C-alpha cells in the first residue's frame, strides 16, 4: 500500500457538498485534499454546444452518471425478500465526476418548510402522537428553521437562485409562495419567465383558489456574480438541462459557482480517479486516521488526515460508514442501531395534459427548474391534515423541463404503444401537451432501511449497498389526495384529454420508473446518539473527526427537492467546523 503525506482535512467525494466544504474551509490555510472517484469536468470542453444537445448520449445512456457496471445498489421490497441488483438506470441516477450530481441536476432550489425540520414535535402537538402509525419513525432534525435561515440564504446567494419571495420578514408578498418560512432577503434574482404550459397551469390554479408561484430556479434569469466573484449567464431554456451539463454557465453547479476560485487556492488539492473504499480508524475505534482509496492505476493508497468529511452522496455516504464500521448498523427487527436507518424516497404522480392544435405549448422550451409554476398549498403541513389521516404532502408542478422526444414525448390515454396509431398520436400531440405533476414526501418507517448486500459486489469486490423499500399506506393516501387537487387544476385548464400516473395501494415500488434522485436517510442527524448517527452539525456521534454531508442526514423525506436544505445544513456544519471544531477538535455536542 502506498502511503501519502498527511493532510489536515480530506474531503471524500467532490460534488455539491464537497465543493462547499472545500471553499468554506480554504481560508483557514489548512491543507485540504478532495478525493473524487470520477474525472475532472468543466463547462468547456465537457458540456459545449452542440455536443451537449445529445439526448441519446446524456439523457438516455447517461454519459455523466455513475457507471452501474462498476457499482450499483441492490433492491428488495421487504425485509424477508432477497434483493437483486439495480442493473439499469430507472428510479434514480447517481453523479460520478467532479461536480457530482450537481452537474446534471435540474436546479429546482427549495427551502424546507419550518415544520419539516421539527416534524415529529409538530405533528405530535397539532394532531397527537396517535396520528402517526406505529411503525412510522419520523424525527426532528435538531435544527430549527430560524437558526438555519441564514445558511439557506447563503446557498441561494451562491447559486444565484431566481425566484419570487413569498414571505419577506413575515410579510406575505404577492406572487411568491405564501406558505414558505420567513426569509430575510429576497431571492438574488427575479424569477425566470413562465413557459406557456406553466402559464396555463398558474391561471387555472388561481381560478380554483390556490396560490401558484414561479419555481425557485438555479437556472439564472439574468447575469449574476456571486459572493465568490464567479459569474453565471442567463439561461436560454434550452431543454437539455436535467441529465445534462449546462453549456451556458447558467445552471448553478460547483463548476459555475465555486471551482474557478477554489481550484486556485494553494492549500487546496483535488485528486481525481481516487475511489475511497474506507475511512480508517485508530485502535480505539473513536478516531479517524484518514482514508484508503484506489487510484487510477488500481493501487491502494492510504491518505492520513486529521479531519474526514464524507460528501459522497447519500447512498455512498451510508455505504462508506458501513464499510468503515463507524456507528452501529441499524437493525429493523429491534429498531436499534443508526447507520442505514430511516431510508426514504419520494412519491410522484403525473398528469399528461393534451390540448387541441390551436394551443402551441412548444414543449422543447424549458429549463430544468425555471419557467415552471408551483402550487404549495398541499405540501408539508400547509393545510389541516386532521380529516385526511396522513402525514406529509406534495407540491404541484405545472409545465415542462423540455420536450426531448425519446424521454419526454407523451401521448393521450388509449394510444397504442407502437404502430401507425402511436405514430399519429405522437405527431398530433407533441407540440400541444404539457404536464402537471405532484412531488411528494415519504416518511420513514421501521422496516425501510439500508445495509450491505450479502451477495453482490462492486468492481473492487466490496459489498453493494442494499435498499429495503416499498410504499406505505400513508404515502398512497398523500399522493391520492394531492393528485385530486392537481386534477381540479387540470380540469380548469380545459384540455381535450388527460392521462394519469398514480401509485395506488397494492402497487409496489417500481425501480424501472424514474421518479427522483431524492433518496434520503441512512446517516441521519438528530438530538441523541440513540436515535441518530450525527449531531446537528453533521458530526458523527461515534467518531468526532468525521462529518457527513448530504441528504443521508435527513431523518425522513420532504415534499421538496432536497438540495436547498442540503446546502443550508452544509453551510451550518462548516461554520461550526471553522469557528469551533478546528479551535478545539472534539464533539460539538455532548452526547
Amino acid at each position, binding site marked *: 500500500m502506498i502511503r501519502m503525506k498527511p493532510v489536515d482535512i480530506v474531503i471524500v467525494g467532490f460534488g455539491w457538498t464537497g465543493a462547499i466544504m472545500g471553499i468554506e474551509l480554504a481560508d483557514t490555510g489548512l491543507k485540504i485534499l478532495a478525493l473524487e472517484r470520477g474525472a475532472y469536468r468543466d463547462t468547456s470542453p465537457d458540456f459545449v454546444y452542440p455536443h451537449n444537445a445529445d439526448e441519446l448520449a446524456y439523457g438516455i445512456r447517461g454519459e455523466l452518471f455513475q457507471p*452501474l457496471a462498476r457499482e450499483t445498489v441492490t433492491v428488495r421490497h421487504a425485509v424477508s425478500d432477497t434483493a437483486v441488483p439495480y442493473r439499469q438506470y430507472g428510479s434514480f441516477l447517481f453523479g460520478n465526476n467532479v461536480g457530482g450530481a450537481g452537474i446534471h441536476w435540474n436546479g429546482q432550489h427549495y427551502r424546507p418548510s419550518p415544520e419539516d425540520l421539527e416534524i415529529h414535535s409538530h405533528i405530535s402537538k397539532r394532531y397527537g402522537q396517535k396520528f402517526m402509525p406505529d411503525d412510522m419513525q419520523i424525527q426532528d432534525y435538531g435544527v430549527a428553521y430560524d437558526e438555519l435561515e441564514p445558511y439557506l440564504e447563503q446557498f441561494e446567494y451562491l447559486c444565484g437562485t431566481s425566484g419570487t419571495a413569498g414571505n419577506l420578514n413575515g410579510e406575505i408578498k404577492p406572487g411568491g409562495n405564501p406558505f414558505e418560512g420567513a426569509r430575510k432577503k429576497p431571492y438574488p434574482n427575479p424569477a425566470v419567465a413562465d413557459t406557456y404550459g406553466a402559464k396555463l397551469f398558474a391561471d387555472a390554479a388561481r381560478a380554483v383558489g390556490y396560490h401558484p408561484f414561479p419555481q425557485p430556479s438555479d437556472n439564472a434569469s439574468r447575469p449574476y456574480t456571486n459572493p465568490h466573484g464567479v459569474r453565471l449567464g442567463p439561461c436560454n431554456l434550452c431543454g437539455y438541462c436535467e441529465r445534462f451539463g449546462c453549456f451556458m454557465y447558467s445552471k448553478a453547479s460547483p463548476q459555475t459557482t465555486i471551482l474557478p476560485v477554489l481550484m486556485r487556492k494553494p492549500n487546496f488539492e483535488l485528486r481525481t480517479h481516487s475511489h475511497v473504499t474506507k475511512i480508517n480508524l485508530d485502535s480505539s475505534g473513536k478516531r479517524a486516521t484518514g482514508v484508503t482509496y484506489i487510484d487510477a492505476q488500481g493501487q491502494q493508497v492510504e491518505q492520513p488526515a486529521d479531519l474526514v468529511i464524507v460528501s459522497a452522496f447519500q447512498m455512498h455516504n451510508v455505504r462508506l460508514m458501513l464499510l468503515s464500521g463507524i456507528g452501529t448498523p441499524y437493525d429493523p427487527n429491534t429498531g436499534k442501531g443508526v447507520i442505514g436507518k430511516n431510508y426514504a424516497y419520494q412519491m410522484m404522480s403525473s398528469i399528461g395534459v393534451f390540448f387541441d392544435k390551436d394551443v402551441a405549448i412548444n414543449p422543447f422550451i424549458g429549463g430544468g427548474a425555471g419557467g415552471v409554476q408551483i402550487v404549495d398549498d398541499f405540501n408539508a403541513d400547509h393545510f389541516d391534515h386532521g380529516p385526511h389521516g396522513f402525514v406529509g404532502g406534495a407540491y404541484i408542478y405545472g409545465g415542462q423541463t423540455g420536450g426531448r422526444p425519446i424521454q419526454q414525448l407523451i401521448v393521450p390515454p388509449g394510444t397504442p404503444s407502437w404502430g401507425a396509431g402511436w*405514430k399519429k398520436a405522437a405527431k398530433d400531440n*407533441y407540440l400541444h401537451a404539457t404536464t402537471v405533476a405532484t412531488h411528494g414526501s415519504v416518511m420513514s418507517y421501521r422496516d425501510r432501511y439500508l445495509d450491505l448486500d450479502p451477495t453482490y459486489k462492486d468492481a473492487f469486490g466490496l459489498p453493494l449497498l442494499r435498499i429495503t423499500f416499498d410504499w406505505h399506506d400513508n404515502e398512497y393516501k398523500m399522493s391520492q389526495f394531492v393528485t385530486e387537487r392537481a386534477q381540479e387544476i387540470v380540469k380548469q385548464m380545459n384540455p381535450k384529454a388527460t392521462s394519469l400516473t398514480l401509485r395506488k395501494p397494492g402497487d409496489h415500488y417500481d425501480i424501472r420508473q424514474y421518479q427522483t434522485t431524492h433518496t434520503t436517510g441512512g446517516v441521519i442527524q438528530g438530538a441523541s446518539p440513540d436515535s441518530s448517527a450525527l449531531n446537528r452539525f453533521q458530526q458523527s456521534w461515534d467518531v468526532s473527526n468525521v462529518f457527513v454531508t448530504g441528504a443521508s442526514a435527513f431523518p425522513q423525506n420532504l415534499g421538496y427537492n432536497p438540495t436547498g436544505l442540503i446546502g443550508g445544513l452544509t453551510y451550518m456544519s462548516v461554520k461550526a467546523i471553522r469557528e469551533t471544531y478546528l479551535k478545539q477538535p472534539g464533539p460539538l455536542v455532548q452526547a
Partner: protein
Amino acid sequence: MSSKQPSSPSRRDFLRQSLVAVPAVSLMGTAAIAQTQSGTAATPAVAAGPKYTPRYFTAPEWDFLEAAVDRLIPSNEDGPGAVEAGVPEFLDRQMEAAYGHGGLWYMQGPFVPDSPPTLGYQLRYTPRELYRKGIAAIDDWCQKQHNQKFAALPADQRDAILHQLEKGEIKLDDVPTAAFFSQLLTNTKEGYFADPMYGGNKQMGAWKMIGFPGARADFADWVEQPGKVYPFGPVSIEGAKS
C-alpha cells in the same frame, strides 16, 4: 474573478450559420414547415449515401429487424417509417457500442430472472445477446407455426405476432418474449428520435414530423411569446439544417 463568456464562439458561429440557412418562415405554422421541409430540402449526401452494411447483425437477423421495426413505426402519410429513418442501422451501430456489449449495465451474477418485474431487468443477456437469441428463437417459432421466418410473413401477421410478444403470450425456451419486445421497442424509438449522427432519424425526419427543433437549444427569445408556434425547423449536432 472568473468572468466567463456565457456563449462560446463556436456556439455563436454554429447558431449564426444555422439561422442564416433558415428561410423566413416565422409566420408559418409548424405543420406547414414540416411539409415544406420533409420533401425537397433533404440533404442529398445522406439520401444518396451507400446502403448500410450491418456489422453485428447477420443477414437473417437484419431481415427480421427490418420486418419488425417496419411494423413498430410504419411508413405512411404522417411521416417516415422506422426503416426509412434508418432504425436498423442505428440498432446495428448500438450493438457495436459499449451499450450493446452490456457495458453500461451491472452484469454480475447471480441472475434471478423470475424476480418481480418492478425490480427491473434481471436477465443475464447483454443487448447483443438478447437480440441474437431473441431473433433466432422467434424465427424458429415462426417457422414451426407458420412455415416461414418472421420477415417473410405478411404485415398483419407480423403485427399479430408482435402483439403476442409484447404480452408475453409466446413462450420461448431461453428468452422472455416481453423483455425482448420491450428492448426492441425502446431501441427502435431511440433510433427514430436520436440525433441523426447515430444512424437513425435520417434527414431529421422524425423531428420534422413532430415539430421538435433538435439541437437548437436556444429559446430565450421564445419563452416570452407564449402560445406562438415556434417557427424554425430542426438542426442536428453535425450541422444538418432545414
